[in-house]
């Protein structure tokens, strides 16, 4: 479904991504794990056009995303929940969710999706009139995911959804990611919480300073000695 081939990205003289290839098939949860500064966020940013690639290709169902303007990508069925949430803090919770449906015109379906988001995140419904900036970190993460869902995507890119959350909330968020996947959503998950990420993933890639150094099934990597040492603190 999503195919990245030999992608290179640099910021000025610094090459952050040194030629990576990865693939996400329909219905999968694929995770991309790696230490700080490995280039995970850069990879996602390049997929959605927020950062320009140097070379290589990114294809969504055969369509060249590198030649697609950033704002046109969401209408192709790909939604990106950026690192640090990036919710619109002065807008209300519901206005934020509606921003997620900005490109859509099917009013009835939008309402259906809104109630679907509220069912998944009842806390957002309780706070729908509240300014989003006043939400707690966990609620903001739920809002960011809910907002992405409002575009009714087929594939979701999640950048460190567990960042800054309490262990209990991390569990809840991962549970929801899994549930979304069971409802048919394809997911590319970027995480530093490698244990959690691998445990729900079909497949995973390990990124180290701009290169993919390992790939395999989630369970397989969880058992791998090198991965355990480097990323699971075991």
């Amino acid at each position: 479904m999503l195919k990245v081939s030999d992608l290179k990205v640099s910021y000025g003289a610094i090459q952050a991504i040194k030629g990576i290839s990865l693939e996400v098939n329909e219905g999968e949860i694929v995770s991309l794990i790696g230490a700080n500064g490995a280039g995970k966020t850069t990879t996602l940013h390049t997929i959605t056009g927020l950062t320009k690639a140097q070379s290589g290709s990114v294809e969504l169902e055969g369509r060249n995303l590198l030649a697609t303007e950033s704002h046109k990508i969401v209408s192709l069925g790909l939604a990106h929940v950026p690192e640090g949430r990036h919710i619109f803090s002065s807008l209300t919770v519901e206005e934020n969710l509606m921003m997620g449906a900005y490109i859509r015109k099917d009013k009835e379906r939008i309402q259906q999706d809104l109630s679907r988001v509220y069912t998944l995140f009842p806390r957002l419904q309780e706070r729908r009139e509240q300014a989003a900036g006043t939400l707690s970190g966990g609620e903001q993460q739920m809002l960011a995911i809910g907002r992405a869902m409002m575009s009714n995507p087929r594939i979701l890119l999640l950048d460190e959804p567990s960042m800054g959350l309490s262990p209990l909330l991390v569990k809840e968020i991962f549970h929801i990611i899994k549930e979304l996947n069971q409802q048919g959503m394809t997911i590319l998950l970027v995480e530093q919480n490698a244990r959690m990420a691998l445990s729900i993933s079909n497949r995973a890639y390990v990124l180290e300073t701009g290169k993919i150094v390992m790939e395999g099934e989630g369970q397989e990597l969880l058992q791998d000695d090198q991965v355990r040492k480097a990323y699971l603190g075991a």
Partner: protein
Amino acid sequence: MPQELIVFIKHLINGVQVGSIYALVALGYTMVYGIVKLINFAHGDFIMVGAYAALFSIPVLTGIGLPAWFCVFVAVAACALLGVVTEKVAYKPLRNSPRISALITAIAVSLLLQNLFMVCFTSSPRPFPEIFHVPDLRLGSIQINGVAVLTIVLSAVLMIALQLFVQKTKLGRAMRAVSEDSEAASLMGISVNRTISMTFAIGSGLAAVASVMYGSVYPLIDPYMGSMLGLKAFIAAVLGGIGIIPGAMLGGLVIGLVESLTKAYINTQLADAVVFGILILVLIIKPEGIFGKNIGEKV
């Protein structure tokens, strides 16, 4: 009614009239700042261009049988186009550069426009004809100048319309979203470039309306007329809180009133000094302006 009170009310109305012109101009500064975090120093000169566009279009318009005040539309079109082109040519290439680069470019655009117009049309002031023929308004013993009423009402209508646009329409929501977080807005499917162009068009269009109303109060136009007017409107925007739409409106009115009352009761020469004094005071006491940072709508 005592004579002094009547005179006072006249000064108030005069202040509100000039203030609403400042407010229209201040909106342009504030909207552009809100969305690209740039003080568009050329904004004042857009007013000047608007005034010339209006002036030169009047004979053409009356020649084809249209009323002279249709020059407002010509000025709005000219300024909106100028704003959009300036952004595309001068500011957009610098969007990811340090902010100071864009700021210096804005000053350069300002100087370019002033000098271009001086070379083309000389620096001697040209009279701006009377284009609005509105009867004066009588309220008891107070007679209010018709153009003043028109200016105030027109500005009020435009500001309400703008507020409704920003708050209630889809494009307005896109503007707020881009102003708050342009990357996230882009991920929502909003074209950041188009939204920025639209903001420049609206801001510059409001400046064009201001230019015609200004020409109707001070009917002399020259290539430098925009600098002082622009500066005062900029102070108004800072006073209200740069980036905040209702702040620009309030700031404009306050500056207009202060200026008018200073002229009337203290000293004409002192009016500008008082206005700049306000800027210094705001910067010292509450640099984020009356409406602060987190309240009000940022655009």
